Protein backbone atom coordinates (compact mmCIF):
# COMPACT_ATOMS: atom_id res chain seq x y z
CA UNK A 1 0.00 0.00 0.00
CA UNK A 2 2.72 2.41 1.01
CA UNK A 3 4.63 1.42 -2.05
CA UNK A 4 1.68 2.45 -4.22
CA UNK A 5 1.29 5.77 -2.41
CA UNK A 6 4.94 6.55 -3.00
CA UNK A 7 4.64 5.67 -6.69
CA UNK A 8 1.50 7.79 -7.10
CA UNK A 9 3.15 10.73 -5.35
CA UNK A 10 6.23 10.45 -7.58
CA UNK A 11 4.05 10.23 -10.71
CA UNK A 12 1.98 13.23 -9.62
CA UNK A 13 5.17 15.22 -9.10
CA UNK A 14 6.39 14.53 -12.64
CA UNK A 15 2.93 15.19 -14.13
CA UNK A 16 2.74 18.60 -12.46
CA UNK A 17 6.26 19.50 -13.59
CA UNK A 18 5.43 18.51 -17.19
CA UNK A 19 2.20 20.58 -17.11
CA UNK A 20 4.06 23.71 -16.11
CA UNK A 21 6.37 23.36 -19.10
CA UNK A 22 3.43 22.63 -21.36
CA UNK A 23 2.00 26.10 -20.59
CA UNK A 24 4.31 27.68 -23.19
CA UNK A 25 3.65 26.13 -26.59
CA UNK A 26 6.51 26.10 -29.04
CA UNK A 27 5.60 28.34 -31.99
CA UNK A 28 5.42 26.37 -35.18
CA UNK A 29 6.94 27.78 -38.41
CA UNK A 30 3.40 28.16 -39.83
CA UNK A 31 2.17 30.34 -36.97
CA UNK A 32 5.34 32.48 -37.24
CA UNK A 33 4.64 33.28 -40.89
CA UNK A 34 1.04 34.04 -40.02
CA UNK A 35 2.14 36.42 -37.29
CA UNK A 36 4.47 38.17 -39.71
CA UNK A 37 1.63 38.64 -42.18
CA UNK A 38 -0.65 39.95 -39.44
CA UNK A 39 2.01 42.45 -38.37
CA UNK A 40 2.50 43.65 -41.96
CA UNK A 41 -1.25 44.09 -42.30
CA UNK A 42 -1.35 46.02 -39.03
CA UNK A 43 1.40 48.35 -40.30
CA UNK A 44 -0.47 48.97 -43.55
CA UNK A 45 -3.71 49.73 -41.71
CA UNK A 46 -1.90 52.08 -39.31
CA UNK A 47 -0.26 53.87 -42.24
CA UNK A 48 -3.59 54.35 -44.04
CA UNK A 49 -5.28 55.54 -40.86
CA UNK A 50 -2.54 58.12 -40.26
CA UNK A 51 -2.90 59.31 -43.86
CA UNK A 52 -6.66 59.59 -43.46
CA UNK A 53 -6.24 61.57 -40.26
CA UNK A 54 -3.65 63.86 -41.82
CA UNK A 55 -5.97 65.22 -44.50
CA UNK A 56 -9.63 66.17 -44.38
CA UNK A 57 -12.21 68.10 -46.39
CA UNK A 58 -12.52 71.73 -45.38
CA UNK A 59 -14.26 74.84 -46.59
CA UNK A 60 -12.96 78.33 -45.89
CA UNK A 61 -13.95 81.88 -46.77
CA UNK A 62 -11.43 84.67 -47.19
CA UNK A 63 -10.40 87.72 -49.16
CA UNK A 64 -7.71 87.32 -51.81
CA UNK A 65 -4.34 88.81 -50.89
CA UNK A 66 -2.11 87.49 -53.64
CA UNK A 67 -2.37 85.12 -56.61
CA UNK A 68 0.26 83.09 -58.40
CA UNK A 69 0.07 80.21 -60.87
CA UNK A 70 -0.29 77.53 -58.24
CA UNK A 71 -1.09 79.35 -55.02
CA UNK A 72 -3.56 81.87 -53.59
CA UNK A 73 -2.98 83.65 -50.30
CA UNK A 74 -6.16 84.52 -48.41
CA UNK A 75 -7.04 86.38 -45.26
CA UNK A 76 -9.78 84.34 -43.65
CA UNK A 77 -12.68 85.68 -41.57
CA UNK A 78 -10.60 85.37 -38.39
CA UNK A 79 -7.83 87.49 -39.91
CA UNK A 80 -5.38 84.64 -40.44
CA UNK A 81 -3.36 84.24 -43.64
CA UNK A 82 -4.25 80.98 -45.41
CA UNK A 83 -2.39 79.42 -48.32
CA UNK A 84 -4.44 77.67 -50.98
CA UNK A 85 -2.81 75.39 -53.55
CA UNK A 86 -4.48 75.21 -56.94
CA UNK A 87 -3.97 72.77 -59.80
CA UNK A 88 -5.40 71.93 -63.21
CA UNK A 89 -8.49 70.19 -61.76
CA UNK A 90 -9.50 73.08 -59.49
CA UNK A 91 -12.95 74.31 -60.57
CA UNK A 92 -13.97 77.98 -60.45
CA UNK A 93 -17.48 79.44 -60.26
CA UNK A 94 -19.19 82.78 -59.79
CA UNK A 95 -22.86 83.67 -59.62
CA UNK A 96 -22.21 86.78 -61.72
CA UNK A 97 -19.89 85.24 -64.32
CA UNK A 98 -20.48 81.84 -65.92
CA UNK A 99 -16.97 81.73 -67.42
CA UNK A 100 -15.21 82.63 -64.19
CA UNK A 101 -11.62 81.42 -63.95
CA UNK A 102 -8.31 81.92 -62.17
CA UNK A 103 -7.55 85.02 -64.25
CA UNK A 104 -10.74 86.68 -62.95
CA UNK A 105 -9.59 86.54 -59.33
CA UNK A 106 -8.57 89.97 -58.04
CA UNK A 107 -7.00 91.16 -54.82
CA UNK A 108 -9.61 91.91 -52.17
CA UNK A 109 -12.22 89.60 -53.72
CA UNK A 110 -14.12 87.47 -51.22
CA UNK A 111 -14.03 83.79 -52.17
CA UNK A 112 -14.85 80.41 -50.67
CA UNK A 113 -12.50 77.48 -51.08
CA UNK A 114 -13.53 73.85 -50.73
CA UNK A 115 -10.71 71.36 -50.80
CA UNK A 116 -8.39 68.96 -49.04
CA UNK A 117 -6.73 70.40 -45.96
CA UNK A 118 -3.37 68.99 -44.86
CA UNK A 119 -3.03 69.26 -41.09
CA UNK A 120 0.73 68.89 -41.31
CA UNK A 121 1.43 71.66 -43.86
CA UNK A 122 -1.75 73.61 -42.91
CA UNK A 123 -2.40 74.22 -46.62
CA UNK A 124 -5.57 73.51 -48.50
CA UNK A 125 -5.59 71.97 -51.98
CA UNK A 126 -8.53 73.67 -53.67
CA UNK A 127 -11.06 71.61 -55.55
CA UNK A 128 -13.74 74.31 -55.83
CA UNK A 129 -13.34 78.09 -55.68
CA UNK A 130 -16.45 80.33 -55.70
CA UNK A 131 -16.99 84.03 -55.29
CA UNK A 132 -18.79 84.72 -52.02
CA UNK A 133 -21.11 87.31 -50.51
CA UNK A 134 -21.46 87.17 -46.74
CA UNK A 135 -24.31 89.10 -45.10
CA UNK A 136 -23.43 91.69 -42.47
CA UNK A 137 -24.86 91.29 -38.97
CA UNK A 138 -25.27 93.96 -36.31
CA UNK A 139 -26.37 93.68 -32.69
CA UNK A 140 -27.30 96.70 -30.63
CA UNK A 141 -30.06 99.01 -29.45
CA UNK A 142 -32.38 101.27 -31.40
CA UNK A 143 -31.47 104.90 -30.77
CA UNK A 144 -33.73 106.61 -33.33
CA UNK A 145 -36.80 105.71 -35.36
CA UNK A 146 -37.64 107.53 -38.59
CA UNK A 147 -41.22 106.50 -39.26
CA UNK A 148 -41.45 108.65 -42.40
CA UNK A 149 -38.53 106.95 -44.22
CA UNK A 150 -38.95 103.56 -42.52
CA UNK A 151 -35.50 103.40 -41.07
CA UNK A 152 -34.02 103.07 -37.61
CA UNK A 153 -30.63 103.97 -36.20
CA UNK A 154 -28.95 101.20 -34.26
CA UNK A 155 -26.07 101.72 -31.84
CA UNK A 156 -23.98 98.53 -31.95
CA UNK A 157 -22.15 96.89 -29.05
CA UNK A 158 -18.88 98.32 -30.44
CA UNK A 159 -20.33 101.85 -30.36
CA UNK A 160 -21.00 102.10 -34.09
CA UNK A 161 -24.09 103.94 -35.28
CA UNK A 162 -25.81 102.25 -38.25
CA UNK A 163 -28.78 103.57 -40.19
CA UNK A 164 -30.95 100.57 -41.04
CA UNK A 165 -33.66 100.70 -43.68
CA UNK A 166 -36.65 98.41 -43.21
CA UNK A 167 -38.12 97.96 -46.67
CA UNK A 168 -41.02 95.86 -47.93
CA UNK A 169 -38.87 92.73 -48.31
CA UNK A 170 -37.47 92.96 -44.76
CA UNK A 171 -38.88 90.70 -42.05
CA UNK A 172 -39.18 91.86 -38.45
CA UNK A 173 -39.63 89.29 -35.67
CA UNK A 174 -39.75 89.58 -31.92
CA UNK A 175 -38.44 87.19 -29.30
CA UNK A 176 -39.46 86.92 -25.68
CA UNK A 177 -37.90 84.48 -23.25
CA UNK A 178 -41.31 82.96 -22.55
CA UNK A 179 -42.07 82.27 -26.21
CA UNK A 180 -40.59 81.86 -29.64
CA UNK A 181 -39.91 84.06 -32.66
CA UNK A 182 -43.11 85.81 -33.70
CA UNK A 183 -43.98 88.23 -36.49
CA UNK A 184 -43.50 91.84 -35.49
CA UNK A 185 -43.94 95.15 -37.25
CA UNK A 186 -41.96 98.33 -37.83
CA UNK A 187 -44.60 100.35 -35.99
CA UNK A 188 -44.04 98.30 -32.81
CA UNK A 189 -40.31 99.06 -32.61
CA UNK A 190 -39.26 101.36 -29.77
CA UNK A 191 -36.18 103.39 -28.97
CA UNK A 192 -34.02 101.35 -26.56
CA UNK A 193 -35.11 97.98 -27.94
CA UNK A 194 -32.32 95.46 -28.24
CA UNK A 195 -32.16 94.21 -31.84
CA UNK A 196 -30.24 91.90 -34.15
CA UNK A 197 -30.09 92.84 -37.84
CA UNK A 198 -28.93 90.83 -40.85
CA UNK A 199 -28.58 92.53 -44.22
CA UNK A 200 -26.36 94.12 -46.82
CA UNK A 201 -24.96 97.62 -47.33
CA UNK A 202 -26.94 99.72 -49.80
CA UNK A 203 -25.25 99.83 -53.19
CA UNK A 204 -26.07 103.48 -53.81
CA UNK A 205 -25.84 104.95 -50.30
CA UNK A 206 -22.80 103.74 -48.35
CA UNK A 207 -24.20 105.07 -45.07
CA UNK A 208 -27.39 103.01 -45.37
CA UNK A 209 -27.80 99.36 -44.42
CA UNK A 210 -30.66 97.38 -45.97
CA UNK A 211 -32.20 95.00 -43.46
CA UNK A 212 -33.05 91.52 -44.64
CA UNK A 213 -34.13 90.26 -41.20
CA UNK A 214 -34.47 91.93 -37.82
CA UNK A 215 -35.13 90.39 -34.40
CA UNK A 216 -36.38 92.57 -31.53
CA UNK A 217 -35.52 90.97 -28.17
CA UNK A 218 -38.45 92.17 -26.08
CA UNK A 219 -37.18 91.27 -22.61
CA UNK A 220 -33.43 91.12 -23.17
CA UNK A 221 -31.28 92.94 -20.58
CA UNK A 222 -29.74 96.26 -21.61
CA UNK A 223 -26.07 96.45 -22.50
CA UNK A 224 -24.40 98.98 -20.19
CA UNK A 225 -21.74 99.70 -22.82
CA UNK A 226 -24.31 101.08 -25.25
CA UNK A 227 -24.96 104.72 -24.45
CA UNK A 228 -28.09 106.13 -26.00
CA UNK A 229 -27.76 109.89 -26.23
CA UNK A 230 -31.17 111.52 -26.47
CA UNK A 231 -30.82 114.69 -28.55
CA UNK A 232 -31.76 117.74 -26.52
CA UNK A 233 -33.72 120.48 -28.28
CA UNK A 234 -31.95 123.80 -28.87
CA UNK A 235 -32.91 126.44 -26.28
CA UNK A 236 -35.55 128.77 -27.64
CA UNK A 237 -35.35 132.45 -26.76
CA UNK A 238 -38.64 133.70 -25.52
CA UNK A 239 -39.63 137.08 -26.95
CA UNK A 240 -39.37 139.85 -24.40
CA UNK A 241 -42.05 142.42 -24.07
CA UNK A 242 -40.63 145.35 -22.15
CA UNK A 243 -36.85 145.03 -22.32
CA UNK A 244 -36.35 145.90 -25.95
CA UNK A 245 -36.36 149.24 -27.71
CA UNK A 246 -39.52 150.20 -29.52
CA UNK A 247 -39.19 151.64 -32.95
CA UNK A 248 -41.24 154.63 -33.70
CA UNK A 249 -42.04 155.74 -37.21
CA UNK A 250 -40.20 158.93 -38.19
CA UNK A 251 -42.57 161.76 -38.65
CA UNK A 252 -41.98 163.78 -41.69
Amino acid at each position, binding site marked *: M*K*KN*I*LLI*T*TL*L*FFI*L*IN*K*SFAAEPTPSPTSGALNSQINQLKDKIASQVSKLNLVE*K*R*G*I*IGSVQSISNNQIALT*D*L*SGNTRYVDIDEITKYASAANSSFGLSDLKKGMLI*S*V*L*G*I*YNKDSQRILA*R*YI*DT*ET*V*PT*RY*SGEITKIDGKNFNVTVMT*TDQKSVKVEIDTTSTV*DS*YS*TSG*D*LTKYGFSKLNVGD*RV*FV*VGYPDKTDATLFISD*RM*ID*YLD*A*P*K*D*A*TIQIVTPTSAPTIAPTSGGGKTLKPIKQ
Partner: protein
Amino acid sequence: MEVALYISGVDQTTAELLSNMKAEKVILSFVAVFVGLIAAGVAFYLYQTTKVVPDQTKPSATKVAMHASPTPTGSDTFTVDMPQDEQVFDKKLVTIKGMAVKGAIITVSTDDSDQVVQPADNGSFTLTQTIPDGTSVIQFSAIFPDGTQKTIDRTVTFSTADF
Protein backbone atom coordinates in the same frame (compact mmCIF):
# COMPACT_ATOMS: atom_id res chain seq x y z
CA MET B 1 13.59 -6.19 -20.86
CA GLU B 2 15.35 -3.02 -19.66
CA VAL B 3 12.02 -1.70 -18.30
CA ALA B 4 11.55 -4.87 -16.35
CA LEU B 5 15.06 -4.55 -14.87
CA TYR B 6 14.34 -0.89 -14.00
CA ILE B 7 11.07 -1.78 -12.27
CA SER B 8 12.78 -4.58 -10.41
CA GLY B 9 15.45 -2.05 -9.35
CA VAL B 10 12.75 0.30 -8.13
CA ASP B 11 11.18 -2.57 -6.29
CA GLN B 12 14.46 -3.23 -4.59
CA THR B 13 14.82 0.46 -3.57
CA THR B 14 11.25 0.54 -2.34
CA ALA B 15 11.83 -2.56 -0.33
CA GLU B 16 14.86 -0.94 1.30
CA LEU B 17 12.81 2.21 2.09
CA LEU B 18 9.97 0.19 3.52
CA SER B 19 12.39 -1.46 5.75
CA ASN B 20 13.35 1.88 7.20
CA MET B 21 10.15 3.66 8.41
CA LYS B 22 11.85 6.89 9.55
CA ALA B 23 13.62 7.42 6.27
CA GLU B 24 10.35 6.81 4.44
CA LYS B 25 8.48 9.43 6.47
CA VAL B 26 11.23 12.01 5.92
CA ILE B 27 11.30 11.44 2.17
CA LEU B 28 7.51 11.55 1.92
CA SER B 29 7.45 14.78 3.87
CA PHE B 30 10.07 16.35 1.58
CA VAL B 31 8.21 15.20 -1.54
CA ALA B 32 4.91 16.57 -0.17
CA VAL B 33 6.50 19.93 0.65
CA PHE B 34 8.20 20.06 -2.74
CA VAL B 35 4.95 19.23 -4.57
CA GLY B 36 3.16 21.86 -2.50
CA LEU B 37 5.79 24.47 -3.38
CA ILE B 38 5.57 23.61 -7.06
CA ALA B 39 1.77 23.83 -7.00
CA ALA B 40 1.91 27.17 -5.17
CA GLY B 41 4.54 28.42 -7.64
CA VAL B 42 2.40 27.40 -10.63
CA ALA B 43 -0.67 29.04 -9.07
CA PHE B 44 1.28 32.26 -8.40
CA TYR B 45 2.71 32.24 -11.94
CA LEU B 46 -0.76 31.78 -13.44
CA TYR B 47 -2.14 34.59 -11.24
CA GLN B 48 0.63 36.99 -12.25
CA THR B 49 0.32 36.28 -15.98
CA THR B 50 -3.46 36.55 -16.15
CA LYS B 51 -4.22 39.49 -13.88
CA VAL B 52 -5.15 42.84 -15.55
CA VAL B 53 -3.36 45.94 -14.29
CA PRO B 54 -5.41 49.13 -14.98
CA ASP B 55 -3.59 51.81 -17.02
CA GLN B 56 -2.97 54.73 -14.66
CA THR B 57 -2.11 57.14 -17.51
CA LYS B 58 -5.66 57.09 -18.94
CA PRO B 59 -8.48 58.79 -17.09
CA SER B 60 -11.04 56.47 -15.68
CA ALA B 61 -14.64 56.43 -16.88
CA THR B 62 -15.70 58.17 -13.70
CA LYS B 63 -13.22 60.99 -14.23
CA VAL B 64 -14.36 61.45 -17.85
CA ALA B 65 -17.98 61.58 -16.77
CA MET B 66 -17.12 64.18 -14.16
CA HIS B 67 -15.56 66.45 -16.81
CA ALA B 68 -18.15 65.72 -19.52
CA SER B 69 -20.63 68.53 -18.98
CA PRO B 70 -19.71 70.92 -16.21
CA THR B 71 -22.26 73.61 -15.55
CA PRO B 72 -20.76 76.89 -16.77
CA THR B 73 -20.10 79.27 -13.91
CA GLY B 74 -18.59 82.33 -15.62
CA SER B 75 -20.97 85.14 -16.51
CA ASP B 76 -19.77 85.15 -20.13
CA THR B 77 -19.38 81.42 -20.74
CA PHE B 78 -20.33 80.64 -24.32
CA THR B 79 -18.93 77.81 -26.43
CA VAL B 80 -20.02 76.07 -29.61
CA ASP B 81 -18.88 72.45 -29.74
CA MET B 82 -20.70 71.49 -32.94
CA PRO B 83 -20.29 72.30 -35.79
CA GLN B 84 -16.55 72.81 -35.88
CA ASP B 85 -15.08 75.67 -37.87
CA GLU B 86 -14.55 74.89 -41.59
CA GLN B 87 -16.42 71.60 -41.29
CA VAL B 88 -17.89 70.06 -44.46
CA PHE B 89 -21.29 68.34 -44.34
CA ASP B 90 -22.94 66.08 -46.87
CA LYS B 91 -26.37 66.74 -45.31
CA LYS B 92 -28.15 70.07 -45.11
CA LEU B 93 -29.54 69.49 -41.63
CA VAL B 94 -26.78 69.86 -39.05
CA THR B 95 -26.81 69.45 -35.28
CA ILE B 96 -25.67 72.38 -33.18
CA LYS B 97 -24.39 71.82 -29.64
CA GLY B 98 -22.84 74.16 -27.17
CA MET B 99 -22.72 75.58 -23.66
CA ALA B 100 -23.70 78.96 -22.27
CA VAL B 101 -24.45 80.49 -18.93
CA LYS B 102 -28.02 79.88 -17.73
CA GLY B 103 -30.38 82.66 -18.76
CA ALA B 104 -28.45 83.62 -21.90
CA ILE B 105 -30.34 84.28 -25.14
CA ILE B 106 -28.60 82.51 -28.02
CA THR B 107 -29.22 83.49 -31.64
CA VAL B 108 -28.16 81.14 -34.44
CA SER B 109 -28.01 83.00 -37.74
CA THR B 110 -27.31 81.53 -41.17
CA ASP B 111 -27.37 83.37 -44.51
CA ASP B 112 -31.12 82.92 -44.85
CA SER B 113 -32.68 82.10 -41.45
CA ASP B 114 -32.38 82.69 -37.70
CA GLN B 115 -33.23 80.71 -34.58
CA VAL B 116 -33.26 81.87 -30.97
CA VAL B 117 -32.83 79.42 -28.07
CA GLN B 118 -32.07 79.44 -24.38
CA PRO B 119 -29.75 76.92 -22.68
CA ALA B 120 -30.97 74.27 -20.25
CA ASP B 121 -30.36 74.47 -16.50
CA ASN B 122 -26.92 72.85 -16.91
CA GLY B 123 -26.03 75.40 -19.62
CA SER B 124 -26.15 73.05 -22.61
CA PHE B 125 -28.10 73.79 -25.74
CA THR B 126 -28.83 71.58 -28.76
CA LEU B 127 -30.76 72.32 -31.93
CA THR B 128 -30.82 71.41 -35.61
CA GLN B 129 -30.27 73.94 -38.36
CA THR B 130 -30.55 73.75 -42.13
CA ILE B 131 -27.45 75.17 -43.78
CA PRO B 132 -27.35 76.82 -47.23
CA ASP B 133 -25.68 75.26 -50.28
CA GLY B 134 -21.94 75.77 -50.58
CA THR B 135 -19.81 77.56 -48.01
CA SER B 136 -21.42 79.99 -45.58
CA VAL B 137 -21.03 81.46 -42.12
CA ILE B 138 -23.20 80.56 -39.14
CA GLN B 139 -23.07 83.27 -36.50
CA PHE B 140 -23.80 82.37 -32.89
CA SER B 141 -24.42 85.28 -30.56
CA ALA B 142 -25.28 85.13 -26.87
CA ILE B 143 -26.82 87.93 -24.82
CA PHE B 144 -25.87 87.24 -21.20
CA PRO B 145 -28.06 88.07 -18.19
CA ASP B 146 -25.79 91.02 -17.36
CA GLY B 147 -26.49 92.52 -20.79
CA THR B 148 -23.10 91.86 -22.37
CA GLN B 149 -22.81 89.93 -25.60
CA LYS B 150 -20.42 87.43 -27.18
CA THR B 151 -20.31 86.26 -30.82
CA ILE B 152 -18.81 83.11 -32.36
CA ASP B 153 -18.58 82.48 -36.13
CA ARG B 154 -18.37 79.06 -37.78
CA THR B 155 -17.66 78.59 -41.47
CA VAL B 156 -19.54 75.53 -42.71
CA THR B 157 -19.94 73.91 -46.11
CA PHE B 158 -22.65 71.75 -47.56
CA SER B 159 -21.22 69.64 -50.37
CA THR B 160 -21.82 66.16 -51.71
CA ALA B 161 -18.84 66.37 -54.07
CA ASP B 162 -16.53 63.38 -53.89
CA PHE B 163 -12.85 64.31 -54.02
